């Protein structure tokens, strides 16, 4: 595909790609048929851009770290437990990392992902490489992400083949005993909730 290069590029619009045109045409048709509204599309796009992201999942994780009863409820019925915090739209199972067990989430068939809690998936999560290798050689994949686990640690891979979505409850890092729930949530990353990272201890002050 050729891109129009122009010194005064802002005066000339680049030719729109067929893909972009097709998306806009579909939206236009569905609006015309009153099946969607432009207002709703904008609101939902806005929600994914601003409201729905890893900070939601991080709140769930931080609550589980500070509240053992909540942690139990979360592991027993993730769907109900996240509703307590105002999150929904997903059937959820939460899997917990411990000193002896590390969990890793993948979707080999497509790219199922707990959007409601951690937003849109990163490009690598949707790649054929991650999807095929995470089940086949998880230790190698994790090392490439910088997570080097001894063979004594069991790696449990969760291939999201049905409608349930998986969220990893990472281990609470050492040295965080005095942190508030909000400060703990700041430490939790998207990658840690997929299982390709661990939550690092906060930098010493």
């Amino acid at each position, binding site marked *: 595909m050729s891109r129009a290069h122009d010194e005064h590029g802002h005066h000339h619009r680049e030719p729109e790609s067929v893909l972009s045109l097709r998306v806009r045409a579909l939206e*236009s048709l569905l609006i015309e048929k009153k099946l969607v509204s432009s207002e709703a599309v904008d*609101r939902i796009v806005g929600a994914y851009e601003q409201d729905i992201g890893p900070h939601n999942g991080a709140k769930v994780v931080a609550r589980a770290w500070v509240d053992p009863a909540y942690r139990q409820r979360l592991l027993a019925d993730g769907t109900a437990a996240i509703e307590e915090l105002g999150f929904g739209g997903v059937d959820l199972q939460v899997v917990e990392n411990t000193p002896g067990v590390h969990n890793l989430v993948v979707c080999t068939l497509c790219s199922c992902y707990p959007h409601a809690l951690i937003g849109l998936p990163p490009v690598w999560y949707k790649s054929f490489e991650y999807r095929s290798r995470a089940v086949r050689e998880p230790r190698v994949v994790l090392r490439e992400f910088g997570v080097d686990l001894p063979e*004594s640690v069991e790696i449990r891979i*969760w291939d999201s083949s049905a409608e349930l979505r998986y969220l990893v409850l990472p281990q609470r890092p050492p040295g965080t005993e005095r942190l508030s729930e909000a400060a703990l949530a700041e430490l939790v990353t998207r990658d840690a909730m997929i299982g390709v990272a661990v939550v690092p201890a906060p930098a010493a002050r």
Partner: protein
Amino acid sequence: MAPIDYLGSSYYERWLDGNVRLLVEKGVITREELERRMAQLASGTDPAPPHSDPKLLERMLRVTKERPHYRQPGPPPRFATGDRVLTRNDAPVGHTRLPRYARGKHGVIDRVHGSYIFPDTNAHGQGEQPHALYSVRFDAAELWGGSAEPCAPVHLDLWERYLEPAAPARSTS
């Protein structure tokens, strides 16, 4: 989607293709209509003016919040946690959620999720047919043979119709 197109498409191209295909199959839009609208948009006119519809807005936003409807009542589960099962070795032409790498393999029921709509029939207009869904644990060696990594079991969510009972594992091994 033809395999060769699938492999050559980006993630969102695949979603778009699937959505267009469904809308055409269900008679909501036609391909000609879509082509025509693309031409109109390319020439700078959009015949569909933005409109406001509070009820539609509420219905669309609710989808991002409410519990999905995949869980539906069905017959009681045949298997319990700890049961050994064998996955069917089948190669259906249509939709399935039993990945090829896990066909004809032994596993253990890890968790009984409850009754869920069966995508294999639902995707083809043959009804929701909800029935038991399980998390099934497979040892890495069962899936990948001698070159498997140690201590790396794979868990798959599988419907009961993919599964047959298997004899308990030899306790001496």
